[in-house]
């Protein structure tokens, strides 16, 4: 089976704490890159507006030929914080989606 390519972003919260909460989705030694709350909200807004909501999953979208999963952490939901994961068939597709959402590329997911 082909490899899966991903990028993770987390707003506002402690990355390590978040990675524990998302443990079932994130491979070991991968932590989300930190982004600002403003950037996170902007990306979520774009995905919700332009992406296709996938019926079987609560906050999963098809956007720019990639799958985007948005996580809202209950403790942070009142502030609009959470995390966003981009999954794609190639690294180029994942990076292209990150660019479209104005998300940083220079911070590697494994940081």
């Amino acid at each position, binding site marked *: 089976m082909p490899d899966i390519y991903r990028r993770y972003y987390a707003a506002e919260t402690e990355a390590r704490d978040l990675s524990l909460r998302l443990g079932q989705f994130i491979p070991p030694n991968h932590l989300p890159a930190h982004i600002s709350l403003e950037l996170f909200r902007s990306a979520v807004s774009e995905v919700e507006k332009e992406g*296709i909501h996938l019926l079987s999953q609560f906050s999963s979208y*098809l956007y720019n030929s990639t799958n985007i999963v948005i996580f809202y952490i209950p403790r942070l939901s009142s502030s609009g914080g959470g995390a966003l994961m981009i*999954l794609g*068939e190639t690294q180029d597709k994942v990076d292209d989606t990150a660019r479209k959402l104005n998300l940083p590329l220079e911070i590697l997911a494994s940081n």
Partner: protein
Amino acid sequence: MNRKISNGFKREYFFSALKPDEEGKNYSFDGFEIFPPPVSRYKRLIRITGEDFLRAYAQITAEGICISSQTSPCSEREEVDLVGLDFLYNSSFITMKSLFKTKRKRDAEDASFATIRITAETEEKLNSTAGRLNLPLETRVELPPAA
């Protein structure tokens, strides 16, 4: 230039695989009956044969990117499990669901019935993915009239 399917339009194909009974006469399993799909969402609801499903299943699992998998016990008493698999394939999102009547069996051909849902951002991509999987765009198997 691909035509973007806006949010208000149907942008998914939903296939249900039918398997004949042991006598090869009646199609006793139909995913659309077990899980009635919201028709307004889909561009097409298509009934396919078990062979269509198995061929597409093999291709998707070999070439696609598995995003997630879930197993939900439907009934402990009857030992029925619903297995769901989500894939990225050909820039489309594919969800496959299979219902197994016994927990001992997990091979696709042992499923009582199965469904494949393809979601894409453009109609061209939708057709491209169905085409690559050799899935028909018209219902191939008609259900017998209700008794």
